[in-house]
């Protein structure tokens, strides 16, 4: 379905990014896997992508650094000459309360989670010009729910979601679809690390041990929706934040552990 398409997944070495890279590859897309800190994991994901019969390329870049974004897109431009799908997945954050969040922590999180989405999209659009394309970003329920130790990431995801809407309209005439997929707690290394931090802050078990759907969200659940948004069937979906949370956001925290 995505045969012949070229896709970039930022933060594609592990977790949700890896699942998306594999899903897009399964559908026939060549995949560029951006990573920041985990080369071995990125190369493993690239190998797994290639085993699905498509091309993979690994590019190291800290998307929090505008110069590194430019270097990454220069490589994509010279290697592929175009881009059809851009998945803004890379994210970072500090487990702090609002009163403990300093300027350095704010900038770090906002640069990687929100500013990178803008700067990468500006470069991606140049490689999509004249042919259209799909842009999907990954958000979380913390953009509007107050979660323990999540303020830095929460505000960055709120900015990201607003930007999703603005970009969707600005890029609509170019045939570029922009949407977001937002999740509750996902069973990734980062998700489990966050759970430990949240439990420390709460002094009790984090209520999101499951969802009304009977299990936590898996990276593949996100990847499936991302792949749909990258398909022509989703052409008329623009600027939406699609929630993949097993119903979590509909149920008050206090009732979650009672199974809804």
């Amino acid at each position, binding site marked *: 379905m995505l045969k012949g398409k070229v896709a970039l997944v930022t933060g594609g070495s592990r977790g949700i990014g890896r699942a998306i890279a594999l899903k897009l590859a399964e559908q026939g897309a060549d995949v560029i896997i951006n990573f920041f800190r*985990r*080369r071995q994991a990125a190369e493993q994901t690239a190998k797994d992508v290639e085993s699905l019969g498509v091309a993979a390329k690994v590019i190291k870049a800290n998307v929090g650094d505008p110069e590194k974004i430019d270097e990454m897109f220069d490589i994509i431009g010279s290697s592929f000459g175009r881009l059809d799908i851009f998945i803004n997945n890379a994210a970072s954050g500090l487990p702090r309360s609002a009163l403990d969040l300093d300027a350095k922590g704010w900038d*770090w999180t906002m640069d990687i989670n929100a500013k990178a989405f803008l700067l990468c999209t500006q470069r991606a659009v140049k490689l999509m010009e004249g042919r259209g394309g799909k842009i999907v970003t990954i958000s979380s329920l913390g953009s509007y729910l107050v979660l323990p130790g999540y303020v830095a990431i929460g505000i960055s995801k709120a900015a990201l979601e607003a930007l999703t809407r603005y970009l969707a309209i600005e890029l609509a005439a170019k045939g570029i679809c922009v949407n977001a997929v937002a999740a509750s707690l996902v069973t990734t290394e980062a998700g489990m690390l966050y759970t430990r931090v949240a439990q420390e802050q709460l002094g009790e078990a984090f209520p999101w041990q499951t969802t009304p759907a009977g299990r936590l969200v898996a990276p593949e659940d996100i990847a499936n929706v991302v792949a749909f948004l990258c398909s022509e069937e989703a052409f008329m979906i623009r600027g939406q934040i699609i929630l993949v949370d097993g119903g979590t956001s509909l149920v008050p925290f206090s009732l979650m552990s009672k199974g809804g």
Partner: protein
Amino acid sequence: MSATEETVKDIIVKIVHCDREVLTPTATFQDMKADSLDMVQVLVALEDEFGIEIPDEDAQKFKNFGDFIAYVEAKVAEKGNA
């Protein structure tokens, strides 16, 4: 003390805001009072400064500042020979 070690110390002091004297071979990252963001920023700054790569898979193995310096010096030497 090598020029590499001096540069590493400059970068750590600038990012972590610790005293230079803390950076002895047996000093741990706790001794520097570096949080996880400080550490990532130090690694990224060193990568940019020396044109080397210090993946997390390696960074997780450093026990103290001495280990860390030895690793960075080896990487810089490896790059020089490449």
